[in-house]
């Protein structure tokens, strides 16, 4: 196979494998920000989710078997994420408390807890999620491994249009958007901004925790302390790029997953002298996208009106 084709397939494979965590975290952040709060702590949630998924999958494998153990892990990841979300949701809505500062604290706490509790799981091999092998038609092992798609990725792809529908056409979506655009107006309508935001942040953190499970139970499929390396934060930037639209979050996640695959793909065809610089591509891309899409003068289209506002006293 020509090196160029290998490179292309490598990037495609990386896109399919690596975009799932971006997708889950960005959808989670999308729900959170639609309700008017930002959660930078999803980086910590991602790590916590990755650790809980891996740990639970490893510990429960002897009792529930190799097939169900990783799914229990996925559930544990979501729940542990949600618990972190409760802390963020409560604290960031107190008077004089700023949600960005809370998010930074939650990054430290989440990663600290994940490293603390995850220490025993660095060595052992936990059972991984089974994948759909769609590449059986091809003789090439590279194509086969490329088309080994995780069910979690497919679930994420399904959640994106579901959220879009939820925001546009349901009562709950209206509540979230109302609270995000103007908490005062929502309060006048009889909706409790505190409750709606709390639930939105919890739901967002649940999804971000599952994003962590994608990391530790699918790709790269191990638990290490460097597993997330800022993906949670990139996902926050990605939501701005996607203009708070779940469908666009999907496309943006694919783009980010692809960019992330550039470094390893070049390495696989023997070009590795600029390995670290290629690996920086997603961060540079995020910055460039923010530079292009943001504007110092006007509010971005689609931005929730109350985003970044102070809490009411």
């Amino acid at each position, binding site marked *: 196979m020509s090196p160029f084709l290998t490179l292309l397939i490598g990037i495609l494979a990386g896109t399919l494998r690596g975009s799932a965590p971006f997708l889950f975290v960005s959808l989670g952040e999308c729900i959170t920000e639609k309700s008017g709060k*930002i959660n*930078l702590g999803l980086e910590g949630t991602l790590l916590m989710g990755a650790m809980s998924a891996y740990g639970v999958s490893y510990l429960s494998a002897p009792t529930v078997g190799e097939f169900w153990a990783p799914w229990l892990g996925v559930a544990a990841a979501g729940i542990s994420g949600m618990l972190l979300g409760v*802390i963020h949701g409560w*604290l960031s809505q*107190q*008077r*004089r*408390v*700023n*949600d*960005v*500062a*809370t998010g*930074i*604290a*939650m990054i*430290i*706490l989440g*990663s*600290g*807890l*994940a*490293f*603390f509790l995850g*220490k025993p799981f660095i060595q052992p091999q936990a059972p991984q999620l089974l994948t759909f092998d769609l590449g059986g038609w091809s003789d090439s092992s590279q194509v086969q491994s490329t088309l080994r798609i995780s069910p979690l990725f497919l679930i994420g792809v399904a959640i994106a249009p579901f959220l879009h529908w939820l925001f546009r056409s349901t009562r709950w979506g209206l509540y979230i958007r109302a609270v995000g*655009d*103007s908490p005062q*107006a929502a309060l*006048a309508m009889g909706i409790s901004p505190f409750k709606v935001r709390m639930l939105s942040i919890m739901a967002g953190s649940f999804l971000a925790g599952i994003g962590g499970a994608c990391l530790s139970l699918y790709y790269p499929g191990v638990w290490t302390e460097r597993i997330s390396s*800022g993906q949670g*934060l*990139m996902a*926050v*930037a990605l939501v*701005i790029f996607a203009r708070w639209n779940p469908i666009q979050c999907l496309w943006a996640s694919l783009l980010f997953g692809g960019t992330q695959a550039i470094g390893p793909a070049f390495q696989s065809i023997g070009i590795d*002298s*600029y*390995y*670290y*610089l290629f*690996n*920086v591509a997603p*961060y*540079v891309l*995020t*910055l460039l996208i*923010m*530079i292009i899409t*943001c*504007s*110092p003068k*006007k*509010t*971005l289209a689609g*931005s929730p*009106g109350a*985003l*970044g506002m*102070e809490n009411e*006293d």
Partner: protein
Amino acid sequence: MSYSPPPASRQASDLGTTEPRDNGPKDNGPKDNEPKESGFLWLRSLEAIVLPIAALLVALLIFGGFCALAGADPIGVYRSIYKAAFGSWSAWQNTLIRASPLMLTALCTLLPARLGLVIIGNEGALVMGGLGAVLVGLGLGDALPAGLGQMTMAIAGMVFGGAWIMLAGALRHYRGVNETISSLLLNYIAIAFLKHLVEGPLRDANFVTKPSSAELDPTLWLGTLPGTRIHFGLLYGLIICILAYILIQRTTFGFATRVTGSNIRAAKIAGLPVGKLTLAICFLGGSAAGLAGMIEVAAVQKRINESLVSNYGYAGILVAFVSRQNPLATILVAILLGGILASGGILQRSHNLPDATVLVFQGIVFLCVLFSDSLYGKIPYLRSTTR
């Protein structure tokens, strides 16, 4: 649905500020629940001392509970932390060695915060500062007398670190890019840049332990204070923190910064050069972290490699928030956190707690301090007693 548009100066990317950048008039006047008489001003300053200390104590309690859950004896853990941090002169030296970079990296968050920006690119600025210092230091060799050579390295580190954070400030001012996210992304870019250089162009093939640059000339090494293991970095940290305090509290520049931080619209109407202030304060903050990088390189490693990335930057964010953006309080908080960092090893050895314990503790402290912010003006004993 009634919809109130956000004020003009707010943008979607303007996601956060530590201090209200755009207070409505209601926030400026005295409120019902705050002491009205000016004679009770001292009560407010008392509040500013009592609340953070109470937050720290509560954090210690929660941390003790956490340790108990993890199967360690909380009292024993407290005792070990105290012993390892402040129990002896040797422990004090360990603490102070760790405190000096913390003082400097904290300023990287603290100074821009006075202008209402949340910068968390401390780690990246530290790395760039270390890189700049090493590049200049390796170029200099022994060409300059010791003091002058170190000075040149320090300036290089400050310029590199400063420019790095100024980039985030410029993106914020000219493009409206959220400075928290951009500065954090810049961390990852700086670290990757460092890895690329030490494994490629800068690599010293004779040094096999880990990919590193060549060693700096001994004239460029930063010495220790006489009779101690503490390097001169501590003095740098103390001096820069005091200078930062004077700059913020006692100069026109500092005043303009504080005005912009508390009400950016008023600052613009008053004709303050908000853009220039943004760039300048970001440069100053970054240069403090850059100096920390230079000190780590010149005093500890003597060459540059990946061990420069040792979380001093992230811990600096915590120091800045706990000290409530006051550079003098930063000195104390940095010493306190330096002590906690110094006790990481002993927690691992004598209590069988993983090294991430210190990180968990930092997270708990951070959350407690943030929560204590919401209590200002709400504690009955700290309020006006004669209402």
